[in-house]
């Protein structure tokens, strides 16, 4: 009976090395920076919101103006390549706010610009925005229909 090529001891040592070397998400650190970066983006949103209210806009108008402003800034920063830094640093803090939504649209559209203005930029703008709109609009529609029948 031949001896096993890798002994039980060696196998255990190997497993220990793998689990030590394998990159683990640094959960607490990531949570901290997601909180700080995401919180700051919302804080900036609040500054815009208060400013638009002070101009005499209604609550809905001020909300729409705030979203549009943040989307514009995020699209611009993505074009300059600076939003990547926000996401690298803040993780979900750069993804969850509406700025992350705008970033996901511009990033994929830019990447496929070589495929032209229709199937490149036009289609790829919706690689991530498409699913978000499909799920959001459908869920809202279902809520409206249920409300109609069961209110």
């Amino acid at each position, binding site marked *: 009976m031949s001896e096993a090529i890798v002994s039980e001891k060696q196998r255990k040592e190997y497993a220990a090395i793998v689990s030590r070397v394998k990159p683990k998400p640094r959960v607490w650190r990531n949570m901290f920076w997601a909180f700080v970066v995401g919180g700051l983006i919302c804080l900036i949103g609040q500054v815009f919101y208060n400013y638009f209210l002070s101009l005499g806009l209604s609550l809905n108008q001020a909300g729409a103006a705030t979203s549009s402003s943040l989307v514009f800034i995020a699209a611009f920063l993505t074009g300059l390549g600076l939003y990547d830094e926000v996401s690298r640093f803040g993780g979900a803090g750069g993804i*969850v706010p509406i700025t992350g939504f705008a970033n996901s649209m511009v990033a994929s559209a830019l990447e496929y610009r070589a495929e032209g203005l229709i199937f490149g930029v036009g289609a790829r703008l919706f690689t991530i925005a498409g699913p978000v709109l499909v799920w959001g609009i459908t869920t809202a529609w279902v809520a409206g229909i249920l409300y109609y029948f069961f209110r």
Partner: protein
Amino acid sequence: MAFFWAFVIGGALCVIGQLLMDLTSYKFTSAHVLVTFVTAGAIISAFGLYQPLVKLAGAGATVPLTGFGHLLAQGALNGVKENGILGAFSGGVTAAAAGITAAVVFGYLAALAFKPRG
């Protein structure tokens, strides 16, 4: 105080997104996070539970994608109140129209104006 709660609630929502990614070893991608947040926001909003958060945290609740779901759901519900069943079709997107149009227009222009890198 509005700024404090905007920071805390907005930050907390982002932490939830971060945990969804970290605790699944990134099988949960940024696209999953965005879709989950917009859907969860719409469902929570339909039960009337998101508006109190907006009242407390302002932009801390409206800037994260859950706020986008909230906008769509409230639009659909208000649409039904005003126009009956047709409102379920028109209300949601109408309420979110400014954000959607801004994202499409500014996104398209930014993708044209800048050079891809890398």
